């Protein structure tokens, strides 16, 4: 990471990314809502996975419980609209704050656990929240919250006829989260996250309060995850526990990041760009009613990645770069030998 080149390189990256996402939009203005849907989901999952990446990738604390924060955010927005008849925005903020507080409360004891014990604790927490929300009367339990018809627009953050404003909303979320992570990556907090991941004892001996770092990362990650959840609620127009607060959603965030490359800036985006179209297209083509082929493919992809290149797409790209370098060096040295 080169700090001094931070500003120049990043302008390129952001221009590139914005270009990348604006271009597909042009033919879609004509109205293929399915592609718009896929694009919205790609941006949403990329954002969500990047939020997870902060604590799971950069800081190395692999949590399978992020669906709790996602769900709290979703319920925040949902309750505001359904129960209180307001715009979702107060619910979004409130949900994010609650998610952050919950994160800090449960992570503090959990960080005393090591390795698989920690991972299992995070499963346990998701399952507990899932069950509790299923029976919690105030949030309509298993029935869930169904959105009423309201005026379209940014005030209510809901549209019915078209997905394009959702797309721009997702883009804004994406830019916020990715921008934040990019900033962190080049500053002390980002370095400290990685130090804690690499070797906690060494980090401590260099003056890093690892517990504090982990808590901050968890809190931030939870806050951002809740924002994504709120967006999801506004997009789906419905919130219930199996949709937003379950283990499979948690696993998806983890898998997207791992597929792209944990602890890397582009990993979550790359992972989402591959996985979400795969998920959505196979579901449409073969998923049907429970034929499961889409998930079989998903499963095969995961196994292949974990066996072949656990560092994900970024890992594969680095391998290719190294291979090219070695080939170049070989060619150069061979040409010297000839002389």
């Amino acid at each position, binding site marked *: 990471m080169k700090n001094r080149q931070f500003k120049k390189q990043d302008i390129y990256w952001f221009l590139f990314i914005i270009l990348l996402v604006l271009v597909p939009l042009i033919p879609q203005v004509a109205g293929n809502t399915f592609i718009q849907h896929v694009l919205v989901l790609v941006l949403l999952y990329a954002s969500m996975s990047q939020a997870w990446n902060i604590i799971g990738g950069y800081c190395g604390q692999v949590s399978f419980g992020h669906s709790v924060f996602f769900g709290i955010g979703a319920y925040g927005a949902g309750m505001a609209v359904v129960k209180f008849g307001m715009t979702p925005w107060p619910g979004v903020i409130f949900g994010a704050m609650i998610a952050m507080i919950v994160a800090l409360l449960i992570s503090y004891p959990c960080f005393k656990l*090591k390795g698989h014990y920690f991972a299992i604790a995070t499963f*346990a927490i998701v399952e*507990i929240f899932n069950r509790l929300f299923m029976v919690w009367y105030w949030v309509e339990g298993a029935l869930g919250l169904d959105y009423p018809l309201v005026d379209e627009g940014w005030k209510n953050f809901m549209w019915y006829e078209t997905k394009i404003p959702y797309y721009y909303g997702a883009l804004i979320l994406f830019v916020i989260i990715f921008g934040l992570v990019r900033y962190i990556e080049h500053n002390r907090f980002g370095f400290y996250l990685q130090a804690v991941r690499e070797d906690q004892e060494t980090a401590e001996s260099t003056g890093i309060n690892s517990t504090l770092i982990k808590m901050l990362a968890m809190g931030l990650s939870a806050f951002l995850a809740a924002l994504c959840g709120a967006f999801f609620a506004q997009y789906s127009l419905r919130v219930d526990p199996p949709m937003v607060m379950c283990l499979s959603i948690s696993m998806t965030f983890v898998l997207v990041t791992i597929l792209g490359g944990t602890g890397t800036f582009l990993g979550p985006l790359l992972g989402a760009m591959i996985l979400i179209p795969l998920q959505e297209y196979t579901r449409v083509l073969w998923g049907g009613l429970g034929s499961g082929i889409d998930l079989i493919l*998903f499963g095969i992809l995961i196994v292949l990645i974990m066996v072949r290149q656990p560092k994900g797409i970024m890992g594969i790209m680095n391998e290719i770069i190294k291979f090219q370098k070695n080939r170049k060096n070989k060619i150069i040295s061979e040409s010297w030998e000839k002389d």
Partner: protein
Amino acid sequence: MTMFLQVTIDGLLTGMIYALVASGLSLIWGVMDVLNFAHGEFLMIGMYVSYWLGFLMDIDPLISWIASGAFCFIIGILTYKLIIHHCLSGPPLSALLATFGLAMILKNIALNRFSPNFRILTHTILGGKKIILGDLVLALPQLIAGVFALIVVFIIYLIIKRTRLGWAIQATAMDKEAAELMGIKTEWIFAFVFGLGGICVGIAGGLLPSYLAVHPEVGSLFSLIAFVAVAMGGFGSIPGALLAALCIGLAESLGGFYIAPVFKYVVVFGLYLVVVMFRPKGLFGW
């Protein structure tokens, strides 16, 4: 009072099955530090094998457990050789996530081939029979399954503790390199242990279809409960897994009856969190 006893016994019997499933997982975790996410799906496979043998060829679970066990043994070894072996050289969680992928594959193949329908064997030797002790009703299939599961756990424990093979396994679990220096073929041990995990779950799966419905999702919850049992008991410890599994069976049963059925698993997972707060490495972990 009788209700309490009834619920307790039901819980213990369930716990014994959990114990068998958890023992296999505990071995795998203890020896190679891998959390087998597909463990529940292996159980599902064992159950389907037993079901189809019963349904198509009228073979009773009391016999078909042998086939289930053997089939899952092979699946375990294949899983190790084809997948886990390659993941061990990578980052720690890659094996776990690979097994997650495998679980997805297995579950959805079952879904695709066998449909999501719940299936149960209706004409088994033990099916529907009960033993009545005063006010207590003990369903025979559950009773035999539970007791048999307990015996298998005990046998496995004896193998680990008393045989040369078991010592080789323990040595590999404690220090792989040192074991190799002593001439132990650790690769073979790893594969065998994974297969052994498969046997545990295959035998459990073999007995269940006489009273528990088979369907593609049946493995998922068993997986989670097995994880919790193993972690609560302490990884690598079979007595720990047994004790924890029994506690979980009880918690599930008592919690479900006295609080509310939907809270069954809140109690179970909550129990895990409580135990692990006081003993971060489980009850008997090292």
